[in-house]
């Protein structure tokens, strides 16, 4: 169990509260018309929404893992955190090799490299 306090209160309750607030921000971000803000950063509204969602998902992820799953503040936290992070390499490999390649990858090559354009 957690032996520390967050803002002077029970850490689990505060964690729950914090997660709810973050979720609320996520939902609001999807409904607010942010096209203008997106333009300022040189991207479409959809891209900006994706950034916001990703940036909020990360702390939510960390809060659940650290506080609810006792990866912070527990005597066993260090080794369990390392255990939990061990698959990171394999996840990155899978995302890079499978998630970020796609069937028409050969069309992204320069013309001189694409099959059918170099005289063979």
């Amino acid at each position: 169990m957690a032996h520390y306090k967050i803002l002077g209160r029970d850490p689990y309750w505060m964690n729950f509260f914090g997660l709810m607030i973050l979720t609320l921000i996520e939902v609001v971000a999807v409904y607010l018309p942010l096209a203008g803000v997106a333009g300022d950063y040189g991207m479409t509204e959809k891209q900006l929404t994706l950034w916001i969602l990703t940036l909020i998902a990360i702390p939510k992820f960390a809060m659940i893992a650290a506080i609810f799953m006792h990866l912070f503040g527990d005597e066993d936290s260090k080794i369990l955190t390392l255990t939990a992070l061990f698959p990171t390499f394999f996840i990155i490999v899978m995302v890079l090799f499978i998630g970020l390649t796609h069937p028409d990858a050969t069309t992204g090559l320069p013309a001189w490299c694409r099959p059918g354009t170099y005289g063979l």
Partner: protein
Amino acid sequence: MERKTAMTRSMVVLVFIAIAMVVSPAVNSLPTGIGGDNIQTQGCNCHNTLPSSNVITSLAGLPEEYNVSTTYTLTISFSGGPAEGGVNSGGFNLWASDGDFSVVDATVQARSPTELTHTEAGNDYRSWTIEWTSPDHGRNVDFILHVNSVNGDGANTGSIDEWNRLDVTVAGSAGAELEPADAFKVLGTLIMISVVLLTVTILYGFYRTNPDNFTWDYLAPWITGWLTSTDHKRIGTLYFVQGLFFLGVGGIMAMMIRVQLAGPDTGFISQDQYNQFFTLHGTTMIFLAAMPLIAGFANWIVPLQIGAPDLALPRINALSFWLQPFAALLIFTGVFSGEGADTGWTGYAPYVVSAGAHDGVTYWVAGQIMLVASSTLTGINFLTTMAVMRAKGMGWMQMPLFTWSILVANVMLFLSIPAFGIGLIQVFLDRTISTAFYDMTAGGDPLLWSHLFWYFGHPEVYVVIVPAFGVISEVLATSARRSIFGYRSMVYAMAGIGLLSFIVYGHHMFTSGMSPTLRFVTMLTTMLVAVPTGIKIFNWLKTMHGGSLVYRTHTLWALGFLVTFTLGGISGMYFPAIAMDLHLHETYFVVAHFHYVLVGGTVFGMFAAIYYWYPKMTGRMLDERLGTLHFLIGFISYNGIFWPMHRLGVVGMPRRTHTYFITTDDFTSIPEWAADWNLFISVSAFIFFFSNLILVANMLISLVRGQKAPADPWGGWSFEWMVSSPPPTPSFDWNNLPELRDANEHIAHEPTRMGAWFNRLMVPDQEEEASN
């Protein structure tokens, strides 16, 4: 109960089983395609689509029963149909299933020795004379005669012109033509025989445990004990028996494939049947033979080697095992009716989700989903066990190398197999509720399956070879009577192989049109992964060089492994060069390579493990002379099978095709000598298959009459040799676990830089034992 009564009972049971086998309904035979001309199967349709009964055909001159090798004069004639007009009154086509036709005049021509038709000159007749020479075997001969009756107006179609067909069978003294053997009936029969043999062996094993109590009352608790046990030793034995059984079944399939390939166009297995054979051979050998054999040894030996009473999660261990036999039932669904999986063990999309693939594919996929669950649970169990249940004094760097190899293999397994599981679920859903993961018309991408499959598939092949590495390390160290050379580098090499294996899988997909960047990356990483493997081979050589080798059977198999696995590794190094891969992909060079590393690697490793640990597991010594005989015959015949395949692959013999053609056209076929070498391979295959029965016989005989084994017959020094043969249950007492006082003291208490960093990070301050 009296011994006599007991034996009578078992005899009766066996007789019933034998009768049941004989009267069992024949398996559905497949339609045996009739080779040859379409006319025999589809009839004429040049002059109208349907035959007409107005045309009366006759084939005169055939005897009731022919004499062998006699020439008969036959007259083909017909009447009826439209009235004769100008030229072109009629024509015919006469086909015989055997014998030879000869032409007597210019009105008839021969299309082949068994097929005659009219010439242009003979086109305005309504009867023709020919000669037929009967065959020398005396079996029934079928004749099929087609005649057409036309009115000579030169038009090809029209309701006036008519045709008809006549089927005649001429009896010979020997009776009906023998039906060619149906490959699936042969397979089914052989598998049923194997099952019966297995059942008899098990019952005999039961008899030997307690000869005076060979009764039903004692059988029920005995079987229940086996069906419900969670003890790692029992589960190990169960895996082992399953693995050996399916090794045999896979071997039977391989033998039948080799019969088919012994000569060009043998006609034993059609392409459609052949697809199922190589699919099931691959799936059986990898998932139902190799993995269970490894799991069997892992279950038996790992807890003994680390000084643990059992695995971390015993009931889940039992679940891991029991998922496998039921998965096997699903995987083999449809085989005997000809609807078994026909996609290759790699199950490539989009064929695997197409309706054109056999129905058995859906069940094959479901069975493999169960195997995924089994492997995931096994991986979790072993990683946990090795992480937390080592004996006092046994740090990570004091674990025996076999245990390390199982650790690396299991980590690779449970991290990579979920990708395969997800792919399988996608295929299963595509084939059942019709989702669209791989449906190309809906935008599905077949390459996704290849990625998911090989993300798992490549670590998987390392999963089956790394435990063999562990076995060889153990066997060579004990045989050389010294500790393994370079223990630390062996551990790092295995861990390196484990890690790298995840980033090389693209080399299975070089010809698929996948991302070129990925092709480049994968080429480099594949070349890199040979380095740690090479380190291990050099370490083994140095172990022998610095030691004093004793030649037991397990030593022989380990030495054989060194030769064949190195050869397999070298042949594998041709593939990362993409230009070479484009030439060698899907040829027998690939088959040669992976059989060298899988059979010459994994299977030889397992043989070495059997000879090494059998005394520990059963308490009996195996016969060394039979073992040496097994090795000599097996090793030589094995190389006879797979070495010639390299050259066959280089000249272009493709894999997964049911036959090959030898013609004079060099460009489209393979050279003439290929047929000779294929025959040589097939003969070697039979010798190899039967040589392995020597091992089975050895195991069974030794179980009954072998010399009793001491706790440590070979002079090994890991924990498993400190307990009795066979070990007690539980293997170690929970309250009195062993403690390791390391023989290599100077290694035990000297952490490396990485070990020191790890220590600082992980170990609580009040730690007296400085173990890494």
